[in-house]
Each structure stands twice: as structure tokens, then as C-alpha cells.
């Protein structure tokens, strides 16, 4: 963009949105390695649409932002002219408690949404390790916490969505009723699309009742096979756990496998005691029941904002192979991982602190990736220093048939490639 | 017992007589004006498809035109102007008439009358190829006639005793025989001598009812043991059993194959035989016959001289299991250490809604374990004379049934229909399993008489 063109575009933005909604960017606004030219603030769908329309007219590339907790995710975009900040669009528009539904703007912090619905004894069954996470960010990056095990992911809970397309067109799909099969489901398509198809401005979610009582049943085992067996027994138990997680601290420490039970007061502790005793019997180990979650529960391993985070996944029954495979790669590369995650689903997060040589970290990623791929699984890099990102493919390979369809989808939604270009899989 | 059932007039003619004069073939459709499938019954079908999984031919081929919904659709298009083509007839012929779809239908579509009328139309308005015509003439000139069937017993017994079957198979000649003949040959059960039933069997103990017994054609010729066991069990339960001499075929085989005039004639004779017998109930141990007798009022609706008697008779008709449960079993049953699988004959379960009674009777025998057959609602492929007319489909269905029967791990198969009995035994043999087969009353008879389980297994 020439200086003159930049000037024209900025004027158009200020003219359409109002001066106070357009600001210069700072270092804190970086999206990966790229610093945007301007930050445009939007307080709702309408202003977001206006911003995207002007961006389209002036050929500007756009990355949306909510709480800013995950701007380091994905590849660095090829270019970013505008950072579209939706934190001002933070209203919880409607909580229909009797219908177990909440509708909120994309910039609404997840915490706020939870606070609102908790007043009626309800919860949005989505967790995000970042306290600043907003609904929009949760959708775009497909956040998940332990209760993903029972309640499903964001895609399974989102029932309606409003998006602004690359040219400013506003479109909605779904609605505020849980059961609805009219039209295509854009909510699922946009979930986990990292801002590359459009900007989410509003969403409607189904809710669940809050449990009266919660209990955690945990067992610690030194051997990955035994840990995987514990996870399997919890996964197939008829106690219906809300979550089955594991934690393996650094240094190949013993693995703690922990299940959460939720339900009516009184009976939940009964169920937990029963589960602990039957599990203990099967494993020949003592299982602990606790009224509070372990301190690592629902948090990503490692220090937030530092180090290299990876996610590895396989079929749930291949958990032992996944764990052992990671162990072998650690031996090969001399880099140690902290591991934590959804043992019941076969999805684990790993973390390496800063300080290891970049090449070794990259080798670790590639090694884990190869082992996961052999199990029909995948490995992605959730965050990493730019030096490491330069050495590895953040997303890893995607099967060619599906990737071709994804490309065609991207071409339809963003034919000019102005929405977070290059940030997502396969350079989308 | 003498068997002097004369052949009905109509059956002697090569083609069915032309029905009343107004019946001119419809130039713009499949059916003539005499009793076409009823439009209002067709309209009851809402096309929901619930019948599909219950239909044996849909189970085999997964094609709409060989499903009840598809056949009703074909009837409808026939009424709407489509001609009675060879392909249309093929799909009607493929129907086993098992009526499982009637059980499955939530809208209460009366498929029975629809397919019966359609078959009658096909017989009247469609000229089959010569081989098929010859085969049908052979079947319908043989099975409904006890005397002719009985006359076959001796040569068949010789055939089996002299191991001609094995010889034929070894020589490869068997494989060269037409499929229909092969089917017929392989279905024949072991022919055995059995004592004849007297005209009257007194009740044991207090008399609770006088029952007339229909002895059937195939049952009579190939399963005389079943008739004897029926009479003994009934007597043990306090029934005086009357076996009217004049009875012949009830018309079931003809009725189910669209030979309506023939069926009507048989029905008239059966009504005559039992109307004057002075019995409280008419008991039947063959599922197909029972369901036809219960339908006599509809079959004889256009016969003013017989209509009232048909109503009287059908009100008294009971399947043997139905009657035993109705009376409440009172005979002392000895234990039988036996695991059996019970096969629902279509004409009993779908045709008459009799599913619980035989099971209840069997469960009442101390020591006996009853197992259910997976996909029990699917027909075994016997379906009257279907296995003779459509041997390929019938054999596939028989094999499917045999697999499911074998999977129960039972020692013995119980079923209340001679056709099913022959069909499943043949199919089991094809799978290398020689599972004994018995009728419900034979098991009860053994329990009443205190026979050992081995006597049933070693028959």
C-alpha cells in the first residue's frame, strides 16, 4: 500500500466509523510476527460490517481480536492492515434461562457470560485456560477445557451465529432454538477457522444446568500404559464422568489420571466413592476422591505466554502409544515435555520451556508429529517463539482431498484473501 | 379316514373362469374391473416406509419395488394407467405374503386383501411363460388333495430309503434338474408311517369342550405325528376331539396364490364339513390354514348361501396354541430338559397375531429353556408354495433363517407350520446342521406323556 493509498483508506475508515474508533497500533497488537497498521474498534455487528466494507474497498487485510489472548496462535499472517478489535462488543444480549440459551456479542468475556448464566443455576459448558478469553476468540480458536469430554466442543454447543463477511455482508445462521435444521450450519464452519472466513460478531449457545456437587477421582501411576488403562476404565465407566484428564509434570514424572463427576448433592460423592473403589480394585492402586479439582485442572501446561506449546492427538484407545511415543521423542531430542490434557478423548497438550535450542524443539515437534501420524492422529503447535515457528509447520499436513475443499471454501468466503491470510492450515 | 374330496369344477379348467360379465380388461391400466386392488386401502398407505425392514424380499435385495411400500405403489400406478407388465408381475410374484408388513404398519394398511386381489388379477390377466404355467398346474393339482399327496408317500419313501437322492446328487444329475424340481425334492421331509386318527377321541377327565380338528393336506400327508400329538394333547386338556370325515383342503394355498375361485370352492366344502359337526371350537395346528379359515367371511362374502355359516365357523376357529391358553392348561406336565428356539410362522404371528401363546405354553414346561431367534419377524421363505415357485429367493431366506436359528444354540427348533418346518430343516441341512424340528404340540405331548428329551431329539 502506498502512503497516499494508506491515507485515503484511513480517511475512509475514520469517515465511516468515527475517529474515536480507529487508532494507531502498538507492539501489543502484534499478530504473530506482524504488526498491524491500525486498530479498528467495533461495538457490534454494524460497526464491524462498516469496517470490513471499507477494508474491502481499499484492499486492506484484517485480523479480528477479542481479548487478545490467542493472537500468537497459528502461522503469522502474510499481512495485517487492520486489527479489528471487538472487545467493545461485549454485551450478553439475552439469557433465556427457561430455554437454556444465551446470546452474546463476540467481545463478551467468557467469564462474564458464565457469571450471568450462573445466576440462574446454569453454565455454558465451554472452558478456556485464558482468563481474558472472549466468546469470539473461543469460537475462532475452538477452545476446549476438561468438560469437552461430556458436553462436546464449541461446535456442539453453538446454535446460532452472526458473522460479517470479507466484503461487509452480515449473515446469520441457526437461531435461538437448540433444535433447528434449517439451512447450512455456519456456526460449525466458523468454529476453529481462526478469522480466515469472516468475523464472528454474535453467537447463541445452549446451556447446561450447574451441578450441585462435584467430585474428582484421581490415581497416580508411573507407567504410561497403566495410566492409559486408568483413563480407559474411567472413559468406559457408567459413572458418566464430565471429564477424564491426565497430568504428567516435567521430568517424566508419574502420571496423574483424574475424572470429574458432577450431579446432585449427596449422590455425587456416593458415586465418586464407588468409582474410586472399583477403579482402585481394577488397578490395584489407591484412588483419591477430592471435593476440589487438582491445581492443574483446566490449565494449559507451562507458563502462559512463554515456551513452546504443542497439541497431539490420536484415537482414545491409542493413548498409551501416544504417551510412549512422546517419551521416545523426548529421549531422542533431549527436550522434555510437560503433558496434560483430555486423556478420555486422546488429545494432549505439551509444553517445553524457553531455553532449549530451537532446532531441538523443532525436532521434538516433528518427532511427535510423525508418531501421532502413525496413529492416524495429528500434532499442531499452539504457540512458539518466532524462531521455532520458522523451523516447523505450525499446523502440520492436512489430507489433500479435504484441504482442496477447504481452499475452495476459503475462495468463496474470502476470494481476495484479505482475512488473516496465511494464518491457518495449508496457508489458508 | 377316507378322502374323497372332489376337485372343484373350476380347477379343472386350464385358466380361471372369466368373472362376471362387467369384467372387461382395462385398456388403460393393469387391472380389470372385477375386484381390482381397493383404491381406498391403497390410500391408507402414507409411504412412511416402516414396513421395509420387515419385508423378506427387501431384506434380500434392498429395492423399493420389492418392498410392501413399493408393491402398493405399483398397484397404485396400475390403477392410474400403467399396464400389467412382466416387471410389475415379477414384483407381485416375489411377495411371500408373510404379512410381516401388516404387523409393522402403524397406519393399519390392509396389505392382505390388496395383494390377494392383485394376485387374482395377475392370474386372470397375465399369461405366464409355459414352464411357469406347467409348474403352477402341477402344484395346485397336487398339494390341496390329500389323496394325491398320500399316493406320493410310497414312492417318496422308497426314493428316500433306496438313497436315490444320494445317487442323483453323486451322479450330477440332480444339478441338471430344474430349480423348482430340486427345491421340491429337497424339501420333502422323511416319510414315515403313523397311525390314523379315529373319527372321535374322548376327553380325558372332565370334558371341557368339544373341538373339531382340521387335519390339513401337507400336515396330513407328511406330518401325521403332529395331528396325532394334537389330538392327544387336546384330549389330555379335557377336549373331546372330533375329526369330520368329509374335510379336504381349506383353500389356503389357492387363496394365497391368487386362485380365488378355487379357494372359494374349497372354503365352501370346509364350511359344510364343520358347520354340522356340533363342535364348540375348530382347532387347527397349521398356521396357514388357520389364518385362511379366520378369513372365510371375507372370502365367502359374495356367496349368500355360505356367508352366515362362514361367520359362525370363523368365530369358532382357534389355533391349537391359542385354544390351549384360552382354556388354561390343566394337564400335568413332566419336565423336559431341552433348549428350544421358537420360530414364529408368519401366518400365526403376522396373520393371526399369535406370538405369546405358544411361548407361554413352552415356558410352562419344567426344565425347558426357550430362546429367541434374531430377526424373528422375517419369513423363513417357505410361505405356502413360495419355495416351489421362487426357489432362489426362498433358499436365500431359508439360509438367513437357518443362520439365525443356529446362532441361538438351541437343541431343537419349534414351529407350528408344516411349510416352515420343511423349509428350515432343509436350510439347516444346507448349513450342515441337522437340527431336529418339532411342532409346539409335539413338545407338549412329550411333556404330557413323560417322554424324555432324547425321544424328541432323535426323531
Amino acid at each position, binding site marked *: 500500500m502506498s502512503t497516499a493509498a494508506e491515507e485515503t483508506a484511513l480517511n475512509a475508515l475514520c469517515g465511516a466509523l468515527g475517529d474515536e474508533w480507529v487508532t494507531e497500533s502498538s507492539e501489543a497488537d502484534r499478530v504473530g510476527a506482524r504488526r498491524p497498521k491500525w486498530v479498528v474498534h467495533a461495538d457490534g455487528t454494524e460497526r464491524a460490517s462498516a469496517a470490513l466494507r471499507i477494508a474491502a474497498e481499499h484492499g486492506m487485510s484484517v485480523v479480528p481480536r477479542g481479548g487478545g489472548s490467542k493472537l500468537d496462535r497459528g502461522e503469522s499472517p502474510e499481512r495485517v492492515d487492520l486489527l479489528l478489535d471487538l472487545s467493545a462488543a461485549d454485551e450478553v444480549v439475552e439469557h433465556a434461562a427457561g430455554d437454556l440459551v444465551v446470546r452474546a456479542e463476540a467481545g463478551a468475556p467468557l467469564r462474564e457470560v458464565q457469571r450471568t448464566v450462573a445466576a440462574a443455576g446454569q453454565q455454558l459448558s465451554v472452558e478456556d485456560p485464558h482468563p481474558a478469553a472472549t466468546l469470539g476468540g473461543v469460537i475462532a480458536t475452538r477452545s476446549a477445557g476438561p468438560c469437552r469430554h461430556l458436553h462436546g466442543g464449541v461446535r456442539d454447543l453453538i446454535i446460532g451465529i452472526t458473522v460479517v463477511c470479507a*466484503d461487509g455482508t452480515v449473515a446469520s445462521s441457526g437461531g435461538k432454538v437448540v433444535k433447528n435444521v434449517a439451512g447450512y450450519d*455456519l456456526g460449525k464452519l466458523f468454529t476453529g477457522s481462526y478469522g480466515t472466513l469472516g468475523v464472528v460478531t454474535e453467537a447463541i449457545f445452549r446451556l447446561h444446568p450447574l451441578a450441585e456437587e462435584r467430585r474428582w477421582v484421581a490415581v497416580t501411576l508411573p507407567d504410561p500404559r497403566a495410566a492409559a488403562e486408568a483413563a480407559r476404565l474411567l472413559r468406559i465407566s457408567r459413572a458418566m464422568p464430565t471429564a477424564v484428564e491426565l497430568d504428567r509434570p516435567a521430568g517424566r514424572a508419574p502420571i496423574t489420571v483424574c475424572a470429574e463427576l458432577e450431579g446432585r448433592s449427596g449422590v455425587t460423592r456416593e458415586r465418586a466413592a464407588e468409582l474410586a473403589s472399583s477403579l482402585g480394585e481394577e488397578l490395584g492402586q489407591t484412588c483419591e476422591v477430592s471435593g476440589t479439582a487438582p491445581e492443574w485442572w483446566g490449565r494449559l501446561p507451562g507458563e502462559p505466554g512463554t515456551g513452546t506449546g504443542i497439541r497431539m492427538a490420536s484415537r482414545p484407545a491409542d493413548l498409551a502409544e501416544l504417551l510412549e511415543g512422546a517419551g521416545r521423542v523426548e529421549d531422542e531430542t533431549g527436550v522434555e515435555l510437560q503433558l496434560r490434557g483430555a486423556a478420555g478423548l486422546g488429545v494432549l497438550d505439551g509444553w517445553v520451556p524457553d531455553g532449549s535450542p530451537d532446532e531441538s524443539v523443532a525436532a521434538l515437534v516433528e518427532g511427535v508429529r510423525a508418531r501421532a501420524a502413525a496413529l492416524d492422529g495429528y500434532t499442531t503447535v499452539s504457540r512458539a517463539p518466532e524462531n521455532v515457528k520458522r523451523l516447523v509447520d505450525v499446523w502440520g499436513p492436512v489430507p489433500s482431498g479435504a484441504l482442496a475443499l477447504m481452499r475452495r471454501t476459503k475462495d468463496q468466503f474470502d476470494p481476495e484473501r484479505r482475512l488473516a491470510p496465511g494464518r491457518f492450515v495449508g496457508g489458508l | 379316514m377316507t378322502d374323497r374330496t372332489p376337485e372343484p369344477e373350476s380347477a379343472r379348467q386350464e385358466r380361471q373362469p372369466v368373472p362376471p360379465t362387467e369384467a372387461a380388461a382395462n385398456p388403460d391400466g393393469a387391472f380389470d374391473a372385477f375386484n381390482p386392488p381397493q383404491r381406498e386401502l391403497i390410500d391408507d398407505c402414507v409411504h412412511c416406509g416402516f414396513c421395509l425392514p420387515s419385508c423378506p424380499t427387501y431384506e434380500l435385495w434392498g429395492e423399493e419395488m420389492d418392498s410392501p411400500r413399493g408393491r402398493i405403489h405399483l398397484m397404485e400406478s396400475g390403477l392410474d394407467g400403467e399396464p400389467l407388465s412382466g416387471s410389475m408381475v415379477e414384483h407381485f410374484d416375489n411377495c411371500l405374503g408373510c404379512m410381516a408388513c401388516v404387523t409393522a404398519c402403524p397406519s393399519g394398511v390392509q396389505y392382505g386383501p390388496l395383494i390377494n386381489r392383485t394376485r387374482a388379477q395377475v392370474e386372470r390377466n397375465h399369461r405366464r411363460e409355459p414352464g411357469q404355467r406347467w409348474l403352477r398346474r402341477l402344484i395346485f393339482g397336487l398339494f390341496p388333495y390329500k389323496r394325491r399327496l398320500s399316493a406320493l408317500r410310497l414312492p417318496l419313501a422308497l426314493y428316500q430309503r433306496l438313497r436315490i437322492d444320494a445317487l442323483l446328487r453323486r451322479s450330477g444329475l440332480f444339478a441338471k434338474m430344474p430349480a423348482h424340481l430340486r427345491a421340491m425334492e429337497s424339501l420333502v421331509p422323511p416319510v414315515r408311517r403313523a397311525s390314523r386318527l379315529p373319527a372321535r377321541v374322548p376327553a380325558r377327565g372332565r370334558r371341557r369342550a368339544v373341538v373339531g380338528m382340521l387335519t390339513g393336506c401337507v400336515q396330513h400327508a407328511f406330518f401325521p405325528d403332529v395331528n396325532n400329538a394334537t389330538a392327544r394333547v387336546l384330549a389330555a386338556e379335557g377336549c373331546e376331539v372330533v375329526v369330520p370325515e368329509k374335510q379336504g383342503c381349506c383353500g389356503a394355498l389357492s387363496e394365497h396364490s391368487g386362485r380365488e375361485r378355487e379357494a372359494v370352492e374349497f372354503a365352501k366344502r370346509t364350511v359344510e364339513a364343520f358347520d354340522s359337526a356340533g363342535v364348540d371350537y375348530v382347532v387347527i395346528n397349521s398356521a396357514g390354514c388357520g389364518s385362511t379359515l379366520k378369513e372365510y367371511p371375507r372370502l365367502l362374502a359374495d356367496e349368500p348361501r355360505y356367508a352366515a355359516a362362514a361367520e359362525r365357523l370363523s368365530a369358532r376357529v382357534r389355533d391349537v396354541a391359542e385354544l390351549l391358553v384360552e382354556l388354561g392348561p390343566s394337564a400335568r406336565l413332566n419336565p423336559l430338559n431341552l433348549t428350544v428356539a421358537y420360530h414364529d410362522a408368519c401366518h400365526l404371528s403376522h396373520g393371526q397375531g399369535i406370538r405369546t401363546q405358544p411361548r407361554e405354553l413352552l415356558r410352562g414346561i419344567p426344565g425347558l429353556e426357550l430362546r429367541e431367534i434374531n430377526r424373528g419377524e422375517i419369513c423363513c421363505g417357505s410361505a405356502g408354495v413360495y419355495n416351489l415357485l421362487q426357489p432362489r429367493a426362498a433358499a436365500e431366506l431359508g439360509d438367513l433363517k437357518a443362520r439365525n436359528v443356529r446362532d441361538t444354540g438351541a437343541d431343537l427348533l419349534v414351529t407350528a407350520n408344516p411349510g416352515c418346518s420343511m423349509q428350515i430343516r432343509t436350510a439347516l441341512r444346507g448349513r450342515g446342521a441337522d437340527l431336529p424340528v418339532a411342532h409346539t404340540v409335539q413338545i407338549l405331548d412329550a411333556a404330557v406323556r413323560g417322554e424324555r428329551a432324547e425321544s424328541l431329539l432323535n426323531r
Partner: protein
Amino acid sequence: MESTEPAPPTREGASADLDGCVELLGKLLPEESLITDRQRVRTYECDGLASYRTVPAAVVLPENAEQVRSAVAACSEHGVPFVARGSGTGLSAGALPRSDGVLIVTSKMRRILELDIANERAVVEPGVVNLDVTKAAAPHGYYFAPDPSSQQVCSVGGNVAENSGGAHCLKYGFTTNHVLAAQVVTADGELVELGGAAHDAPGYDLLGSFIGSEGTLGVVTSITVRLLRSPESVRTLLAGFPSTDEAGAAVSAMIAAGVTPAAVEMMDALSITAAEQAVRCGYPEGAGAVLVVELDGPRPEVERTFTEVWQHCDEHGAFEIRTAADETERALIWKGRKSAFAAVGRISRDYIVQDGVIPRTALPEVLRRIAELSAESGVRVANVFHAGDGNLHPLVLFDGSEPGAAERAEEVSGAILELCVEQGGSITGEHGVGADKVRYMGRMFTAEDLDVMQCVRCAFDPAGLCNPGKVFPTPRLCGEAPGRRRGVHPLTEAGLAEQF
């Protein structure tokens, strides 16, 4: 209602070569897999919504994925539209054939390819009957959760197309929540794997877009479904209420108290009468409404909440409450509900099954309005619905032999849908849009909404050959940007399409 509106053309309508396509199909497929005999083909002219009928040019009955692929490729090569069909039980004419197209029927593809109990999943062909998945998994203590009323007939492929739910989707969700991966044939004849073996693989959730697209994005050839552990305990309760108001209040009380039943079903007096006649289910006599409530899960949890549910029903005016003591009694309670649609045939010669959704809390208001509509028009309406999620199934009764009756019923049925949209609900909760409700899409969505959805369609099926004329009123041309439609649409101008 008989016969359809003219089908909108495919985008390559002009270059279509139907004869060439059928000839090619004959070369590519085994003889028995291609049906062109008119009478045979005609049995496929409609699905479960028989008021829409179109005889397809040919029917293909593939036996494996490769045959589906080559059939689609042949259609694509000759520009011929195609429609996929499973068991043909759909209630929105979603599998209505095209007279200028090929119908691809998956009823012969009914193998369960893999039962992977260790990973709690199964891989099935699209023609596998929904209930057969559960039957196969049951001996291992698992089941397939989506349970549409037609589950003993409908195919998993059809479930994928329609995103089928069922009575138990209140707690467990729809087909889309239970499919992990699928192999599909896209409109250009390519076999593509969507989803994957591991959870949450990176990339666009194309599987989420595909499921529920009503056959407009491709033909599914295998499906990896999630199996759920069969619950430790299931309790079922039947409660008779004087009217739907009391029954509705009882449901509200349950939800407010934090109970998530596996299913909550309601039937009104007229539908109870019909079910009673059809299957003699023995529902409480004189009930103005019955509730069927089912709870499942770990035993202590179920026992506790079951007592609560019983109390909620009791407190809100239930005059009779029965609990199922065993599987037979449970089956009998469900029998009345599950047979309700077809059973209405016993009390009315003809009827329309409507499928609309409202926010659950609007139930009393909407039922009152439906009663008013019924009173004003003299058209009887029986109500059967999933009371937990506001999915209504009003059954609009009429006698087609009476002049004008069908039109009056159509009107009432349409007015009920308007009511649903007005309340912020949906025009379809589970039956789909198909051909039947295309005309209502514009009431629920803006032109921009529909255009943006069309972007997905264009990615999968740029030539518009895949089940054209369903779901969307007027197709945006691929390559044409959404939301900027100026002047008259070229197809409208050509008189080929109509804007609703």
C-alpha cells in the same frame, strides 16, 4: 398438493446430456445396479412425503463407495443433476427426484464396516438402518444416540443428510454431535474424507457443514459414528394432565430445577386418541395431555432426579403418574408416542405432519394460538411434540375428498410455521427443508444469510448438480459475490427460477 412446482434448473442446465449419462452409467455399473424400467423407477418417485412426486430418469443402486463415485462422476461429466436417497422416509421431500436427473439410492450399502468398541465408534455404510447400529453395539454395552421416530427404518446416510435428532436429542444432541468422520463423494466425483480418527483435527469443520445439508453437498459413502455407553439406569414415567398448560408447567419446573431429562415428550388429547386406537397403548383415560419423561445415567443420580420429576408432575396437576417397571412397560409407554404420526391416519383420512420449533417457554402461548387457528378454520390439529426443546409436530387433519379441505389445512399448517418464526423459532427442527419448505426459508433468513450459505454450496458443488432445488429458494450463481445482488437475478429473468 399433488405434483411439484417446476424444479429450478441446474446451473449447467443447457449442456446436460441425460441420454449420454445413462448410457455411461450402464457401462460403469453392474446391470442390476441401474434401473431404467419405467414402472420400477416410478416406485422411487417420492420419499416419505408422498404429496411431492417426480419420476427420475434413472435409479442407481450402488453396492459400494466406488460405484457411488463413478455414478456421480458420470452425472458430473454429462451435467446431469443427481439426488441421493437412503430408506426414503424423509418428511420434507428432500429425496424428491428430478425428472431430468439420476436418483442414487444407498439401500444396498448396508454393511457395518467396523465396530471399534475400544474407541467407542463404528464405521457404517450409508444404507445401514439407524437401529441396526445400536443392535450391533448393544452386546458390548453401547448404543448410537440419535433416535428419530423412524429409527427402525431410516438409514444413517439419511440421518447425516438431515442431521436427524429424535426424542433423546434433548440430552444427547443430533447426528452432527455423533459423527466423527465421513467419506463423501463431492459433486465432481471425488472421494473425500471429512473429519478424522482423532478429535478436533485442525482445519475447517467441513463435516459440520456437510451434516444436515440435505444432500446438497455430496453423497456420503461411509460414516464413522460415535457410540455411547449404555446408561446404567433408565427410568421412564408417564403422567396424565388435565391439559397441555399443566403439562407444560411441569416441564418448566423440571428445567428450572436443573433436571436434564433424556427425553420429554408431550401429546395432546387428539393425538392420544389416535395412538390409543392404533396401538392400544393404555394412556390415562380422559387426559388432556400426557407427558413421557425419561431419565438415564448413573443409578443414584437417576433415582434422585426421578423422584424430583415425579414431584414436579404431581405439583403441577398430574392426575395419574405411572412408572415403567420393566423394559416391556417402557416399550408400551413409548409405543404410543412413537406411533403417533402414522396413528393419526386412524382418525383422519388425510393429514399434514408439521415440524416447527419455538423457544420452549413460548409453548403455552403457541398452543393457544394453534387452538385459535384451529377453531377459526374448523381444521382439527393434533399436537405431538418434544416438550423439552420446543420442537412441535402439529398434525393438521383434513379429508382430501372434501373440496377445499386440503387448501384450508395447508393454510393452517403454514400459519403455524409463521407462528414459529414469529416466536424466534425455526421452520424445521428435524424433518428438514427439502422441497417442501423452500418457500419458507425467506421468512427465517435474509437474502444475505442465504447467499453466504450458498458460498458453502459453491465450494462443494459449483455446477449445482447435487440435489438442486432443495433447501435454498434461488441459488446464487457461484462466483457471484454474496449480498450484492443488483437488479434481477439472471435465472429469474430467464423465467427459470422464482424468488420467494
